[in-house]
């Protein structure tokens, strides 16, 4: 008998985070700093619009690409924030989270053997999406000394004549790294000269603590070769609504919409109505949440400094990525022991790529009080190790 499951799928490595989740879920009294989503509830006025849409009986499919009103709002938002225009009719697609957009982008662009450059550590889905779309992932191991920003020479070394896509995951999960305008400018020529397309995953763009986030689409020559991905999960604390979007030139967006039509039909209608409210009236919430995250970020960085735990200062998302190399154990060991001995859950850096070895991801999507208790325990733990 032949194998039940397709070889491509069995060969796909399951996410390293899954294994850790299983250990944590057995511990009742663990404090977690391991969550990759906001601790805030979705602002009530946004939830209220979702509820209202249900009351009004708006329980049908929308058009494949999503509600026109919402696509209009998205087009306006991208224009206001990045100065780049997308035609809401042909160049904006509403997806089930940013994740779906990543998958669609890979499947729309890749032919067998095409290479996709994935800088790591980064979110867990770029490599599997590449593989399932028939592409070959080429990993760049980002370096702490560069604050995990992608360097031109690193990119240059990864480029071959098969390179089709560069994934640009900034602000970054799990490192919290950002790419500023200057950093982006330094890689643009390489991208254009080598005719590479960019999947720019900017789901954390609203959580940038230095200057305003700059998207690579805003740089000359990049709009026509970039798939801009964003969504509502992080900026508006809407993870469970599963709503994201992609903006791309018509030729690409059309094909992504075709795929989306066959596998999804359309993104959840309720969520789409709520998202219109988020874009129209949610800016204050975004600012408030960003300020709260920023306070926690500064607090955390200071605590690490006092503990003598080495950590570059991240300016994006809601993660810090301290180095645990001084303790002479693997990230996995460190996290497992921290969990068993002090009941604090953090995520091993290796869950986000092999070069995450020697680091752990700590999320600050938690209240200050929660962070304090957890940090107290981490401090005890590392003092015992030293």
């Amino acid at each position, binding site marked *: 008998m032949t194998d039940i499951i397709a070889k491509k799928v069995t060969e796909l490595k399951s*996410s390293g*985070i899954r294994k*850790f*989740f299983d250990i*944590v*879920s057995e511990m009742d009294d*663990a404090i*977690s700093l*391991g*969550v*990759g*989503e906001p*601790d805030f509830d979705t602002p009530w006025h946004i939830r209220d619009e979702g509820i209202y849409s249900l009351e009004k009986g708006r329980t049908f499919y929308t058009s494949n690409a999503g509600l026109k009103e919402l696509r209009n709002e998205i087009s306006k938002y991208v224009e206001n924030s990045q100065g780049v225009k997308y035609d809401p009719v042909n160049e904006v697609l509403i997806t089930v989270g940013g994740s779906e957009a990543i998958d669609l982008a890979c499947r729309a662009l890749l032919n067998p053997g095409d290479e996709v450059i994935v800088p790591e550590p980064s*979110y*867990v889905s770029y490599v599997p999406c590449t593989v399932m779309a028939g592409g070959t992932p080429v990993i760049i191991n980002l370096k702490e000394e560069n604050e995990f920003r992608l360097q031109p020479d690193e990119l240059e070394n990864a480029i071959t004549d098969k390179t089709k896509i560069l994934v640009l995951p900034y602000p970054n*999960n799990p490192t919290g790294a950002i790419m500023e305008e200057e950093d982006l400018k330094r890689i643009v020529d390489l991208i254009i000269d080598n005719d590479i397309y960019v999947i720019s995953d900017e789901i954390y763009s609203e959580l940038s603590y230095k200057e305003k986030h700059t998207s690579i689409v805003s740089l000359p020559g990049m709009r026509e070769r970039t798939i801009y991905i964003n969504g509502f999960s992080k900026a508006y604390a809407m993870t469970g609504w599963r709503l994201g979007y992609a903006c791309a030139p018509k030729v690409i967006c059309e094909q992504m919409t075709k795929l989306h039509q066959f596998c999804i039909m359309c993104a959840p209608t309720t969520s789409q109505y709520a998202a219109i409210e988020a874009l129209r009236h949610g800016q204050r919430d975004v600012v408030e949440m960003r300020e709260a995250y920023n*306070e*926690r970020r*500064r*607090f955390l960085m*200071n605590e690490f400094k006092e503990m003598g735990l080495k950590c570059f200062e991240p300016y994006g998302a809601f993660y810090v990525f301290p180095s645990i190399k001084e303790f002479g154990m693997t990230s996995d060991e460190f996290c497992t022991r921290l969990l068993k001995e002090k009941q604090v*859950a953090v*995520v091993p850096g290796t*869950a986000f790529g092999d070069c995450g070895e020697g680091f752990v991801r700590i999320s600050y999507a938690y209240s*200050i009080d929660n962070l304090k208790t957890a940090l107290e325990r981490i401090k005890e733990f590392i003092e015992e190790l030293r």
Partner: protein
Amino acid sequence: MDKKEKRIRILKAIEHEARVDISELAIRLDMEQTDILNEMNEMEKEGIICGYLTLVDWDKTDEQTVTALIEVRCTPQRGQGFDVVAERIYKFAEVNSVYLISGGFDLLITIEGRTLKEISRFVTEKLSAQEAVLSCATHFILRRYKDHGTILAKKYEDERQLITP
């Protein structure tokens, strides 16, 4: 960061967290500790910071308290509007707050007492007896769901998965 912005940041932070440790606040707001203390002192003197209060849910204690919200209609006085009558009312120790409002009534008062009787005595004997007071409507507060931006009815619970990518 200019003085104005500094002050707003401090006020926003301590408005709901009066007991925050100042050295911790300095880190969180990216400011100097002495700066915060100086600004707070100045704002106290200027009457911008009027006090540091504790939000108590008395219903959860054995202490008996009754709170009422009273709308008052009164005649303004020549040259002084409602200031004089407001002052005559807010001087009573049991009166918690007095606001001048628009609409069908002129003043809105909240008052705390131990019993209904105590409050009704205040309304009939003290408040209505004021010459300028024409009429009032007393509403007893049955339950406080939210006060000073804080939800009292329900506690926050973290319902997220323990680990997510």
